[in-house]
């Protein structure tokens, strides 16, 4: 274990209904790093992220967080149901629920803090709008603000740029880069977008045919390496 690691997986297998999608995972995430988690559809990226986030239990092995590590989870925005009539502010406010006890009202200090998180993600102007009526990029900013409101120092993002246009993708990646640099956050992000990854992350975890490959972005996302792994030829 590295002294600076925030998270360590020891012999972890992840999956559903006792069926392992990935097994024998041994790796750590360095505190203050920006790591991209890559892989084909069905390779187990989201399952691994959810297991790290504590949403599901590992089938075997253990996941150890080296404190203090407060998690901020940013789910795929489409899994949030539009039947709920929440404003963007109310969605972001959920981030403070972890430290406001059951049955207790959320105070003005927490509300101010959530406004500040919305401001930091450039979404304070959206506070009064209905979450279900926002664009994909706007929703993503609000969900990142919600994760910040949880006073997270470790952000876990599940495909934050899936299904949004190029301009919004660039804007979200710039926001994440700024948060990473200015607030010294640790970020683990599942993403399909190789180009966006290459310009943003420092380290890459690549789930390839059931094996976890790990390396710095300059090494693992080299053109020759990608061609070798995907067995394709870029023209």
């Amino acid at each position, binding site marked *: 274990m590295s002294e600076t690691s925030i998270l360590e997986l020891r012999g972890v297998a992840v999956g559903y209904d006792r069926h392992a999608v990935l097994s024998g995972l041994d790796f750590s995430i360095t505190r203050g790093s920006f790591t991209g988690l890559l892989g084909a559809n069905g390779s187990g990226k989201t399952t691994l992220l959810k297991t790290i*986030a*504590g*949403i599901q239990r590992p089938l075997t092995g253990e996941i150890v967080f080296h404190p203090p590590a407060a998690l901020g*989870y940013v*789910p795929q925005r489409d899994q949030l149901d539009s039947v*709920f009539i929440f404003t963007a502010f109310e969605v972001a406010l959920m981030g403070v*629920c*972890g430290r406001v006890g059951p049955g207790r009202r959320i105070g003005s200090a927490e509300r101010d803090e959530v406004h500040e998180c919305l401001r930091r993600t450039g979404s304070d102007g959206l506070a009064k709008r209905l979450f279900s009526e926002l664009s994909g990029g706007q929703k993503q900013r609000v969900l990142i603000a919600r994760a910040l409101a*949880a006073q997270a120092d470790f952000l876990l993002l599940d495909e934050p740029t899936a299904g949004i246009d190029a301009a919004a993708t660039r804007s979200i990646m710039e926001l994440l880069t700024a948060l990473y640099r200015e607030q010294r956050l640790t970020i683990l992000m599942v993403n399909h977008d190789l180009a966006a990854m290459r310009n943003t992350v420092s380290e890459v975890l690549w789930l390839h045919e059931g094996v976890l490959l790990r390396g710095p972005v300059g090494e693992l996302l080299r053109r020759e390496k990608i061609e070798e792994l995907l067995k394709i030829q870029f023209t």
Partner: protein
Amino acid sequence: MELLQEIFAPELRNSVYVSLLIGFVCPLIGSFLVLRRLVFLGVALPQISSCGIAFAFALHAWHLVPHLEDSSERALAFGGSFAFTLGALVILTLLQRRYPGLSEARIGTAYALCGAWSILLLVKNPYGQHGLLERLRGEIIAISDLDLTVTAIAFAAVVLVATIFRKEFLLVSFDPEMALTLRKKVLSWDGLLFLLIGITVSMAVLTVGPLVTFGFLLIPPLVARALARNMTQFVVLGCVVGVVGAFGGFCLAYRLDVPVGPTDVALLGAVYIIIVSVRGGLRLFRPRARV
């Protein structure tokens, strides 16, 4: 004015009060069924609850329970109703988590089975036939002081818990995964919410029957969903529509000399159809945004 004096006369006023209570509490709890897209469950639960009452009365026929006084009989009926409702909620939820694809089919099957079992339990039970039909038709016209007090206490507890823990119930309903990452015990909160749903459905079915319970659980929240612009408006509007619908239905039924329960539901249904039609019409005439 004369109508008000008549329906608030001593022999009827308990029925009005219990209608208003159901009009307030069922939409409050039903709003969670709508938000969690469990509308089918809202239809099936009153039927399952009725089956529980039929089962409780069948215990007399099978000589497993002695003949009881009226208050004990009501307690037995509530026990059957509550056990069946909560049991069905737990089983259907566990199956939903494990095999999500067949959820509607399972709820439909539970509805049909419970309807059939209610009839079979009833047809072989002359004592239960008498007692059950009274209950299932909905005794809105004959509510004793004891019935009113018990219903009021149970519903007050439901409203209190639902209000105090509203933040937690909304969080685990909207984003259970996020709630888990915040170290919330999602299963426990779901369990508490289902307990509230179970108590509400059981009390309401016992008092006004499955049809009216279903109507008040779902139609007011659907009306509110069409009008509200935030979650507070959604809940408040649902309760207001439920209370106004219950009172309006009672007055209308009294004036027309028709059963109260079906009148309540028909009135709520008419309001819902009007609101949805007006909204649909307004959408048609709204200028489309330029791309």
